[in-house]
């Protein structure tokens, strides 16, 4: 409300004129200047604004990239190469966009963990949590669709993996894949679809949901810093919160925003530094499915999933792939309804703390395994990995022949010697301490325990040589395996 003072200066009267029409001071009071509990001006409360900042960076750099990027299957990869090597600073904007997304997923995860541990999802902020969960899913959707727009071999085969999962849906599998692909194969219309999702649909949803999320934060107030022994009681909470604001409330701007500003600055600097140092991600080889010398890996956010697909028991696979994510998301949404009141402080919620540690530990270990995927055969080990000298020194011609068979039949792709080679099967450096000659022959011919049977691909002389070599594979100080059933 513009109060008429005695004689306002010229500048003041212009400001008042503008404010009378735009109501900016009122808008400020009810938004940026709203009162927050003094306790919430904490370093733990900076992750929400940090996530939003990342999103803004993504919009700005995304618009810039869209000026050059050609969203068609035949030109997308070429336009990325142009962005990297010809377009002035194109490589840097690609790098900022990529690191912006990494930071966004990371900071958003921290935000979610903080909100969970501080009980901020409890009464009356249940729907703030739910809208945040949808935002989290949208962000993962942006990460996946963005990875597809980097239309290279990883993108192509990543889509293939996605479609193979979708196709496992009972009854509707074929229809769903066709709808997502926009045709019978991964091709032009598939990229157009993911471009539309990445550039129009999901960002639109995110903007709408962020508005709702912030609106809820303003309406319900920011969560006060939880104190142990001060449980939430839905009957009295609103009154207590209002009292708290009256007693300790401070306007968010300018009083409480300092730490958010510092964090935001650090985030931007971090993104810029990473972008400058690491450069843009890819593109790797062109998305030509006839180039099969490829080793598809997803971006880091999806590595835990990628690992889980390799490690879960095959008979449970379809159920786990299709049902577990749905159940997980439902539980996430239900958190505030399962635990609506009671203690907020993590000091009084050991189960919450342990769950967070367990979940993060699981995801980290899975992602770490995904970085070197021990379950995959090492495709070049048979021809590229050296046989350790100490394993062939002083061996007979027959045993040396066996060492050659072990290389040429690709055994090294799954079994390591001297620490190099695949890790799918056990290392063979000391196999003679575990298996007798007879057991070795049986294992080679019949396979088993997740090893293919080689009976059809080895002639008897090769088997004899191979087993003769493997029988020498043990350290001097360990005895040979022996068959307890025989003398």
């Amino acid at each position: 409300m513009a109060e008429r003072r005695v004689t306002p200066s010229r500048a003041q009267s212009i400001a008042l004129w503008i404010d009378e029409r735009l109501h900016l001071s009122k808008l400020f009071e009810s938004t940026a200047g709203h009162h927050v509990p003094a306790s919430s001006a904490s370093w733990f409360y900076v992750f929400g604004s940090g996530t939003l900042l990342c999103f803004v960076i993504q919009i700005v750099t995304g618009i810039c990239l869209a000026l050059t990027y050609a969203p068609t299957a035949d030109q997308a990869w070429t336009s990325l190469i142009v962005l990297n090597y010809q377009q002035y600073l194109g490589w840097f904007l690609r790098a900022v966009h990529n690191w912006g997304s990494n930071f966004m997923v990371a900071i958003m995860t921290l935000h979610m963990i903080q909100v969970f541990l501080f009980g901020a999802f409890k009464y009356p902020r249940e729907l703030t949590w739910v809208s945040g969960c949808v935002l989290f899913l949208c962000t993962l959707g942006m990460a996946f669709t963005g990875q597809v727009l980097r239309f290279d071999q990883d993108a192509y085969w990543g889509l293939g993996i996605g479609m193979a999962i979708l196709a496992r849906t009972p009854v509707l599998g074929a229809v769903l894949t066709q709808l997502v692909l926009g045709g019978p194969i991964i091709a032009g219309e598939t990229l157009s679809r993911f471009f539309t999702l990445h550039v129009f649909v999901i960002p639109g949803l995110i903007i709408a949901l962020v508005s709702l999320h912030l609106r809820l934060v303003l309406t319900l107030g920011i969560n006060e810093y939880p104190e142990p022994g001060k449980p939430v009681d839905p009957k009295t909470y609103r009154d207590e919160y209002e009292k708290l604001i009256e007693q300790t409330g401070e306007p968010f701007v300018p009083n409480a925003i300092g730490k958010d500003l510092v964090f935001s600055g650090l985030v931007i600097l971090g993104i810029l530094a990473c972008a400058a140092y690491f450069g843009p991600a890819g593109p790797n080889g062109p998305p030509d499915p006839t180039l099969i010398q490829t080793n598809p890996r997803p971006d880091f956010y999806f590595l835990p999933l990628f690992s889980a697909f390799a490690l879960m028991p095959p008979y449970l696979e379809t159920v786990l792939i299709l049902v577990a994510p749905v159940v997980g998301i439902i539980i996430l949404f239900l958190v505030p309804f399962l635990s609506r009141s009671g203690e907020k402080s993590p000091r009084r919620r050991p189960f919450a703390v342990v769950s967070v540690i367990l979940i993060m530990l699981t995801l980290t270990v899975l992602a770490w395994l995904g970085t070197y995927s021990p379950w995959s055969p090492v495709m070049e080990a048979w021809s590229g990995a050296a046989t350790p000298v100490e394993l062939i020194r002083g061996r007979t011609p027959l045993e040396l022949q066996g060492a050659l068979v072990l290389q040429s039949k690709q055994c090294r792709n799954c079994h390591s010697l001297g620490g190099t080679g695949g890790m799918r099967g056990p290392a063979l450096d000391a196999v003679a301490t575990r298996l007798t000659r007879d057991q070795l022959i049986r294992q080679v011919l019949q396979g088993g325990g997740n090893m293919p049977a080689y009976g059809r691909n080895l002639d008897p002389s090769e088997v004899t040589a191979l087993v003769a070599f493997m029988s020498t594979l043990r350290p001097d100080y360990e005895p040979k395996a022996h068959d307890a059933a025989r003398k």
Partner: protein
Amino acid sequence: MNNSRRKFLIWLGAGLNAIAGVLLSIPIIGYLGGALRGMQKEQAWIPLGGLDVFPVGQTRLATYVNPFRRPWDGETANTACWVRRIAENQFQVFAINCAHLGCPVRWFPESGLFMCPCHGGVYYADGARASGPPPRGLYEYEYKLDGGQLLVRGGRLPTLAQGV
């Protein structure tokens, strides 16, 4: 009087918008569902070339361009498959996509195995599952010989829901 007039207008407006909404959504849903039209027909006989490029007793990579393509598909319309010539007139043609999650399998003639780089699926020379997570053997194309040419019937991305 005035009140009932207002109510009438609200109902009239809501009704008009409902009808208009339905009329608008029918073509939109139809357009989006257009991808499903002719889904069953998206298979054709595709020539893989003369028989002499496939020696008896060997497995070779063959490529073709998917016949159901858009002009802007570029290299994504290229498709590869593994052709195993068992005897003079007996073949097996496999999709390169692993039956587990679709990654491209590689053929190793020395050990007679197909290996997948993603999650470690392994198949025997005849496409049967050997080890690893795949729930079945490799997807196999129908084939025929015509005028000294090998033709396969395909055109789709093979998945557990639908073969090639």
